[in-house]
Each structure stands twice: as structure tokens, then as C-alpha cells.
């Protein structure tokens, strides 16, 4: 069954400062939405809030996903419900190998479904990981490395795609996935994301500053965020317009709107 992520009138504060001031967006499974906007407009706040980072405090609104309000769930429960945040800056966990981490993630899901579950067997897990690594162009040596520890920018982003491939979410938020990537790495990572979109019928919220990424991950819808609200929505042509004209016209239009 296809499900949607519905963000309704979401207000979020960080340390008593209002960052999101009423965000509305609905993403169906299988759709790609791009979220653009200048620095400080609230894009990453939305990403972290949806993933359940405790630092971000929702003060009003709701986020319905599969019939539940995500805001009532902890970050781990949201993940198990099918949400995935691909981090802009994946966190290094020294001493924990990629393989161990992924096995624990899989087992946490199984355990949540069935408290008596004994977890995936080591041979089954090895087979699964090996297949996913081959499919998503990740070096097999990755499995034994400490998670994101000493990874290059490209390796970190590829590791995020690998995690997504293993965890099979329904909805993915890609937070500036293109940052810190050269063109070759960008192609590999986008290709991975596109394939996952097809195979999992993934819904995606692609947060980016640049049109460049959207040449590789093609959005169905483009939204512009300004000062904590989504102020413009349109098709892929909106991204091209922003690329050509910058954000100033959006700012002008909406400051006038506010003034009027």
C-alpha cells in the first residue's frame, strides 16, 4: 500500500527561536520533491525535525505518515516506520564497523516486529550486504571500516545510499546530498538514489541549493523555502528559473506580499 508524508502547518523552534513558521507539504510514495531555498531558510531544520532530532522542537502542526503523527515518535521509531534521512554530514562512529552497524539496524527492525526474533543470521547478513555493496558500487572493504570514520566526502554519501539500500525505507529525505561531491561521485550517488526510488517506490524530499543535483535526480515538484515557509511550488521548470534568476525575485515577491 502506498503511503504519504503529510506535513501540516509545522512550526519548529530551536532554543526558543522560531525557525519553521507553518510548513505544508505532501509527498506521496514514488514522488520526488525538491526543496530549494537560500541558507538559513529552514530546509535542514525541516529535515532534522522530520527525522526526530531532539534539538528541534515542534511547537505546532503535525506530520502524518502512514496514519501516525511522526511527531509522537522517537527517531528510531520513525526510521522503523519507513523514514530515512540521508545526512548532509554523516556522523562518524569510531570503533563501530559498517557491517556491525547495519546488522544492528536490521535486527532492531526485526526485534520491533517480533520481540522474540533472534536476528538475521551472520551468513544471511553477509550475503545481503555483499549483494547490496555490489549493486551500489561500494567497495567490499567498506564493511570492515569504522562507520564514516576517516571516510572521504564521497564515501560518506555512498555509505548513506548503501544504508538506504539495506534498510529499504518508504520515504527518504536527502539533505544536501550533493554537498562536497565532485561530479563523478555525484553521478554515482544520484544513480543509487534513482535506482532505490524505482525499486522501493521511494518518496523523496531532495534538499539542495543547486539545480546541478536535479539534473541527476529529476524532481516531479520543486518547492522554495523562505524564512521558514514554503512560498513557491511548481514543476521542474521552477528549479531552472531559480538557477537563472537566483532567489532575489522570490524574496522581493514575498516581502511585497507581506507588506501588502
Amino acid at each position, binding site marked *: 500500500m502506498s503511503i504519504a508524508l503529510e506535513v501540516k502547518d509545522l512550526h519548529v523552534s530551536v532554543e526558543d527561536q522560531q525557525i519553521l513558521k507553518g510548513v505544508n507539504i505532501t509527498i506521496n510514495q514514488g514522488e520526488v520533491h525538491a526543496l530549494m531555498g537560500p541558507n538559513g531558510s529552514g530546509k535542514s531544520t525541516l529535515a532534522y525535525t522530520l527525522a526526530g*532530532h531532539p534539538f528541534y522542537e515542534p511547537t505546532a502542526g503535525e506530520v502524518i505518515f502512514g496514519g501516525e503523527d511522526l511527531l509522537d515518535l*522517537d527517531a*528510531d521509531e520513525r526510521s522503523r516506520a519507513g523514514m530515512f534521512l540521508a545526512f548532509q554530514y554523516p556522523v562518524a*562512529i569510531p570503533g563501530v564497523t559498517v557491517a556491525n552497524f547495519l546488522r544492528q539496524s536490521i535486527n532492531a527492525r526485526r526485534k*520491533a516486529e517480533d520481540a522474540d526474533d533472534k536476528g538475521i543470521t551472520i551468513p544471511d547478513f553477509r550475503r545481503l550486504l555483499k549483494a547490496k555493496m555490489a549493486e551500489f558500487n561500494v567497495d567490499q572493504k567498506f564493511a570492515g571500516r569504522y562507520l564514516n570514520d576517516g571516510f572521504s566526502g564521497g564515501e560518506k554519501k555512498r555509505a548513506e545510499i548503501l544504508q538506504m539500500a539495506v534498510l529499504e525505507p518508504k520515504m527518504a529525505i536527502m539533505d544536501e546530498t550533493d554537498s562536497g561531491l565532485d561530479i563523478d561521485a555525484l553521478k554515482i550517488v544520484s544513480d543509487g538514489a534513482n535506482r532505490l526510488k524505482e525499486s522501493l517506490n521511494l518518496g523523496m524530499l531532495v534538499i539542495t541549493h543547486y539545480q546541478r543535483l536535479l539534473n541527476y535526480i529529476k524532481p516531479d515538484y520543486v518547492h522554495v523555502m523562505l524564512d521558514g515557509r514554503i512560498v513557491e511550488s511548481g514543476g521542474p521548470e521552477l528549479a531552472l528559473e531559480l538557477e537563472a534568476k537566483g532567489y532575489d525575485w522570490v524574496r522581493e515577491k514575498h516581502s511585497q506580499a507581506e507588506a501588502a
Partner: protein
Amino acid sequence: MFTKEAVEKLSAHLGEPDWMLQKRLEAFALWEGMNLPTTSEEAWRRTSLRRFKLDKITPSLNGGGSQEMPSRVSSQLTETPAGGEIVQVDGDTLSYSISDELKEQGVIYCDMSTAVNEHPELVQKYFMTDAVTADEGFFAALHGAFWRGGSFLYVPKNVQMAAPVHTSTWNASGATFSHTLVVIEQGAEAVFSDEFGSETGKGQFMHNGAVELIVGDNASLTYVSIQEFGDNMFQFTHERGRVGRDGKLDWIMSIMGTGLMKAFQTMELDQPGGWGRMSGLFFGDKRQHFDLDTQQNHNAPNTVSDLLYKGAMKHQARSVWQGMIKAKKEAQKTDGFQANRNLLLESSARADSIPGLEIEADDVACTHASTVGKVDEEELFYLMSRGIPRELALRIIVQGFFDPIMQRIPFEGVQQRIAEQVIEKVGSLVE
């Protein structure tokens, strides 16, 4: 009580030769002139013994040999069968084995009292003469007078020991004074694991041990010590390794138990080309107090020492690590490194980390690093964002923190056992 008569009685009970009795009495005479350390002494500044009642603890004369060992203590910790195993309770040997292969190699592995009687020339040469000596302090002297039990390993020249040996020391009554003496002759190689444990009992227990590791020229020793005493244990140990020319000492320890422990651990790199690594893992909870005093002494040129101690503390537990790298004037081209990393799981826990350098040579590379930090919320969030519940995420982070030390433990069985202890200690946190 700790009297001269008690020393004589112990020595007679063990059927010791006169030279050992005399050695004990010398240590006893030294001890009589010493006082229980107080916090006014630099080495004891952060560890108070005011709760410790030495007069309530008696030296064990007859052992408690009837006690049953918990199965985990005597269980096989190495995947390949040990070449030799000694299990002791309160200084008495409960079981002992050595493989024919090791015997044929000329390896001597036996309990310390047997060594005194059967290999006096070796014991006289090495026992508390050069590594740990009775004049080092109150507890070294007390140990010299009342030591009992422990094991002796001797590997002759150019022998690569065919299999590791494993000693388990169990404390069932008031006090144990185990003595580990390892002598690796020139060009020889050995792996030794030394395990210490007790159930938490009533009243105060004491372990007053000594560890002496003598590594000859071109020789190599891996020494793994695993400590899991009960919470009513007070532990005081003096431990010292000496490394000869181009020798290697890889010294790894896990510390989980005791209510209070104070250890003096010293690596002496006596000859050019010596290499010594000290790796420590400790995890305190409740009101445990660990005080680790380490020294890396570069006494010759071209020597390398590398120390990494990692500790996690929760509840009201406290750790102290005070480390010193010394390089003598002649110890040019030495490379000394020390790092102490501490992870506080709760703000009520405490870790003091005090690195130190005393460098007399001018051409050396000596560095230190010490950190005390909390569990990183961003790491927790990252793991949780992949579906891992908070408590499990915390456990994964703590296990990851210890992983660099775990990787240095040459036995999978020991790694697993320590991993289980870590999991148990992380437990659930009040937050």
C-alpha cells in the same frame, strides 16, 4: 594479623627454603617501618584509604581450597586449547596442567610456590629483585612478606612457546597475594593470560598482587590480564615489565571489578630497540574507584613506548589515570606516546586524567593526549535515525569506544567475555 610470626608460619606452611623466608622477613622489616599511604602522598592524592580496614583482613595461611570456582572463571577463554592452565583459589592450586609439547620445549610453567622449591636458581635471580621490589611502597613490602600463590612462566632461549598459558586466580576469602613472574629468555616468544576474580562477599577483601614481566633481548611477550573482582575488593598491585634489546612487550589489561583499586604499572625499556605497548580498558559503575598510575621509562636510545588507556564511567564511579613518560639523558631517538580517553555515561561519574612527561634527552618524539567526554548526542541520533533504540545505540557507542583495545586482545574468547561485561555494565541508564 600481619606479624613476623605470621610470616614465619606462612613460610613454614608452604615448606619454603630459608632464603625465601629471609626474603619475606626483609620485606616485613621494611613494611614495619612504613605507614598506610594517605592522600598527602602524591601517588595517593586522589585515592583515599580511609574506608579500608587492613586490621580486619588477615593473611591467608591455609587457603580456602574447598571453595567452588564459578564455571566462567575456569572456562576455556582461548579458542585453541591452552598449553598450560593453573586455577587457584586463595593461593592454593585447584587444578594444574601443562602440555607435553611445552614440557618438551623446556618451558617451565607452574605455581609460584612450586617454582620456589623446584627452580630456586631462577626464582632467586628474578623474584622481586629487578622488576617489582619490596621497597617500592607499603603494599609492595606487604606483598613481599605475605605473597602466596600466583604463577611462574619461564621460556628458554629461542623457544617460541607452542601455545599460550592461562592462570586463573580466585579470591574466596579475605586476602590474596598472588605473584606473577614471567621470564622470557633471549629470542623466545610467549603469550600469557592472567585472570583475577571473586564474587562480591561480605566485609572487605583485599588483593595485594605483584606482576613481574622480564622480556629478554629479541624476545617477545604478550601479557593479557583480566580483572573482575567483586565490589567489596580492595586491590593494590605493583606491576612492572622490563624489556631487553629489540625485545617486545605487548601488555593488555581489562579492569572491571573491585570497589577500589590502585595499580602501579611500569614499562622499563632498558636496552636499545626495545618496544613496549600498554593497552588498558576499564569500566566503572556504582561507586567503583580505579586509580591507575603508569610509567613508561625510556632508559636506552631508540626505544618505543605506546600507551592507550580507555575508560568508561557511570553512576558515581571515578577513575584516575596518572601517566608519566620518562626519557633518560642517554635515551635519544626514543618515541613515547600516551593517550587516555574517558567516556562519562552520566554526569555523576568522574574521570581524572593526568598525563606527564619528564624528558632529559633532547632528540625524542614524546607526545600525550587525554580526553574526558560525554557520549555524543549526534552519534546517538545518527544510530537512532537508522532504527536503533537509544539504549542499544548507547551500548554500540560504548563498545565502539573500547574496540581499539579489544582488537589488541589475541583471544576471541576473552574479547567475547569482556564484550559481555561491557554490555552488562552499560545496562540501562537513568536519564
